């Protein structure tokens, strides 16, 4: 059968959808398959519908498809909601006790979809298991559709259940019986074989952001829980004892950012994280950073707004907001990694950029990159270099005559001391100030200080790299994109190129301030299409503002889901 397989597990929240999905994800990874996993769930603890999807491929992928080869239903609702997503000749796997309506049954027949009805109750009863073990039976059954290599699954069931479940043996026998039921039956199978792989890792954007934050020498992380950014806080908090970091769950987002500012002012590396609503609370503090020129890294994992919006879904809706957030004018940098390799790289760069330019660096993630499971080659931490910029040592400070923390310089960057150092006293002042930081309303100094701070933008623009062009270099159609949607767009572009369709993509992970050289060149020769996970095409708006180039062809999506690869293929093929 095909090299690309998509499977989706659906059920009520609390039925073990995520556990089954995660076990299958880990087992498939060990089997040597390239996969990408994505989950949808409501903002509830119990009840509500949730799904977990895994796409399997022969090469690295960062996307899921709308249409699936196997639909695994842990409840009847899943069948009703998703049966039309099953491809022709696909499979529906469910409990033999589930009722399937005549309408759906006819549809399945028409599309030649096989139904694998597993005798779940019988198997659980036979093993004297609990109702919650239904999903172990199902997990075993799915695995049997995928491969005959049972031990890979068994290892993962042991690994994942050993900590939380005393009934590991019952779970294992349920899994095995589910597996045997399907392997003995006459069902279509995918026969995935073991592939040798080395040093492949599996992680979510949030986990990698946490790891990279630590590896970059950040010692203080402050946040208030807010989906989908909470994963970073939890990753660090759960390991703080080993990492030695102080990971602070603060009383609100204002405290989180202000505490991080205090830590950075004192001289350590610090960061904070939130989602759009929390960032709105942090906005005044962003402006404060602009004024006192204290380095800070701020994570914003976006979710659909406005207001509380849909907390557990995805959107690239905050770009417009964060590019302007904060009263007054001050330089800032916005980074938007497109996969976990970029998360690892950009987080460490963000800390260096913050130190170098003494301002705020915002890292835009979203639910898609924060919580999806990416596979990639093991990171190389020797690439991480810590550069603290113009931070003075005591020895250097001793040589300074009448040290001025906010000295006017050509670059706009002034030398920095740390509290506790002799000869380096300054006031980090939210009021306009002179070289020492003392308040001033002398308008000449105000003007000079404003110009000094804004001069940093010039250096920032020089140092930030141009966007990356992926796909057919000679194509005359170029997709303009940014951030997490690099994943599905790149997978679609590659597939179109394989089909002989000439198309490429210009992807921005350094999104603000905007680099325009490559873009302006392409705009002269190519048809540009903006593809964005928001309503207006916020990045295209930014491009128009900065360059005058008006990308009128905008593919936007704002229903809370990311772009699906097959959906993109359909859209782009018709362009």
């Amino acid at each position, binding site marked *: 059968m095909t090299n690309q397989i998509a499977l989706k597990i659906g059920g009520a929240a609390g039925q073990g959808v995520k556990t089954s999905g995660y076990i299958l994800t880990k087992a498939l990874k060990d089997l040597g398959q390239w996969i990408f996993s994505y989950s949808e769930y409501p903002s509830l603890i119990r009840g509500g519908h949730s799904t977990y999807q895994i796409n399997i491929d022969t090469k690295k992928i960062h996307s899921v498809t709308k249409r699936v080869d196997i639909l695994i239903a842990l409840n009847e609702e899943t069948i009703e909601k998703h049966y039309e997503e099953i491809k022709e000749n696909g499979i529906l796997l469910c409990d033999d006790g589930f009722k399937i309506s005549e309408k759906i049954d006819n549809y399945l027949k028409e599309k030649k979809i096989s139904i694998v009805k597993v005798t779940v109750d019988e198997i659980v009863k036979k093993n004297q298991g609990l109702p919650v073990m239904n999903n172990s039976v199902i997990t075993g059954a799915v695995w049997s559709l995928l491969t005959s290599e049972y031990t890979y699954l068994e290892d993962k069931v042991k690994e994942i259940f050993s900590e939380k479940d005393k009934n590991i043996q019952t779970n294992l026998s349920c899994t095995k019986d589910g597996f045997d039921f399907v392997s003995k039956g006459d069902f279509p199978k995918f026969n995935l074989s073991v592939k040798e792989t080395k040093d492949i890792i599996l992680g979510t954007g949030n986990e990698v952001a946490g790891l990279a934050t630590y590896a970059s020498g950040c010692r203080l992380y402050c946040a208030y829980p807010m989906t989908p950014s909470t994963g970073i806080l939890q990753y660090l908090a759960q390991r703080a004892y080993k990492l030695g*970091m102080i990971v602070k769950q603060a009383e609100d987002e204002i405290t989180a950012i202000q505490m*991080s*500012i*205090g830590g950075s002012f004192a001289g350590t590396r610090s960061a904070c994280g939130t989602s759009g609503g929390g960032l709105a609370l942090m906005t005044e503090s962003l402006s404060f950073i602009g004024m006192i020129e204290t380095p800070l890294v701020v994570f914003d994992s976006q979710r659909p707004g406005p207001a509380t919006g849909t907390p557990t879904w995805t959107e690239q809706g905050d770009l417009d907001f964060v590019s302007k957030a904060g009263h007054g004018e001050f330089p800032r940098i916005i980074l938007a990694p497109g996969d976990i390799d970029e998360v690892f790289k950009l987080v460490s760069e963000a800390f260096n950029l913050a130190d170098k330019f003494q301002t705020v660096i915002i890292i835009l993630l979203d639910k898609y990159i924060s919580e999806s499971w990416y596979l990639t080659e093991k*990171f190389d931490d020797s690439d991480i270099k*810590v550069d603290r910029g113009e931070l003075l040592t005591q020895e250097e400070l001793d040589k300074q005559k009448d040290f001025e923390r906010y000295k006017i310089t050509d670059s706009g960057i002034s030398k920095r001391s740390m509290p506790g*150092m002799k000869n380096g*006293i300054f006031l980090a*002042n*939210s009021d306009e100030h002179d070289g020492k930081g003392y308040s001033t309303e002398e308008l000449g100094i105000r003007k000079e200080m404003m110009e000094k701070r804004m001069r940093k933008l010039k250096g920032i623009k020089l140092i930030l790299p141009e966007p990356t062009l992926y796909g057919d270099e000679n194509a005359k159609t170029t997709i303009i994109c940014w951030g997490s949607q690099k994943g599905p767009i790149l997978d679609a572009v590659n597939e179109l190129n394989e089909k002989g369709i000439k198309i490429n993509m210009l992807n921005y992970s350094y999104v603000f301030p905007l680099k325009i050289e490559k873009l302006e060149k392409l705009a002269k020769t190519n048809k540009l299409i903006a593809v964005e996970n928001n309503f207006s095409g916020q990045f295209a708006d930014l491009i128009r503002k900065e360059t005058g180039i008006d990308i009128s062809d905008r593919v936007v999506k704002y229903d809370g889901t990311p772009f699906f690869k097959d959906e993109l293929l359909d859209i782009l093929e018709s362009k």
Partner: protein
Amino acid sequence: MAQVNDYNTRVKPNWCPGCGNFAVWTSLKQTLVDLNLEPHQVVVTYDIGCSGNGADKLNTYALKSLHGRTIPPAVGAKLANPDLTVISTGGDGGIMEEGVNHLMWAARSNYDITVFLHNNQRFALTTGQQTVTTKKGEPGKTAPRGIPEDSIVPAHVALISKASFVARGFGGDPAQLVTLMKSAIKHKGFSFLEIVQPCVTLNKINTFDWFRERIYKLEEKKDYDNSNWHKALEVSQDMEENIATGILYEDKHSIPYSDRLSHRKDSKTKLVDEVKAYSIDGYIEEFV
């Protein structure tokens, strides 16, 4: 050893003549000298308001925050470098209104910082609107017929938030103020010092004389036991007739936040010394 003069900057104070801030400023300088601290060992954070206008008049490392936010950056600085003496200052507008949550959470966390609340019962810098500490019924610029809300006693908020040191001083008694400031700074854990400090320009009711007639000192009450939290709550509530000053409450067994973190408790280094690239070995294995 530092002298009082070392704590002066080139900026001369510009508070109204007779303002209570002069006494606070002078007392703090004396306190720091008495504690043998050098200016570079001290961080003071400021709020917005007349108290905040002292930010460039005291020669220490300093951060003048946004309105209401004097406490969180002080906490961040202390966590990053526990060797620093960290003092957070602000008025009744900043600490009791805009940022009252920070006071409560900092108190319950028992961070080893000191908060000085300048209480003049007015938004003075914005020329005299009433605050949460203004007595109910007193008129002000935005309540010409008198403020309809009840007032709140800052020391109460600190006490119910589990502050391990709560004191009250008076801008008209610098000698006592120095003693209280020293005790507050030396206390291990979160210390809160409310300084009642008349606004000579915009508060014609709660004047120096008004306070002098009503204030008494707890240290002169032999039977007052400042380890008794309930007693402190009771004694501190009167801001009208008999106003207590001195140490209202002190938990001598207070364990500061940093000592509550098992992984940082015995750390030989400070967060500020630990910034370097860290190997991902030991962590990346979880991803494999």
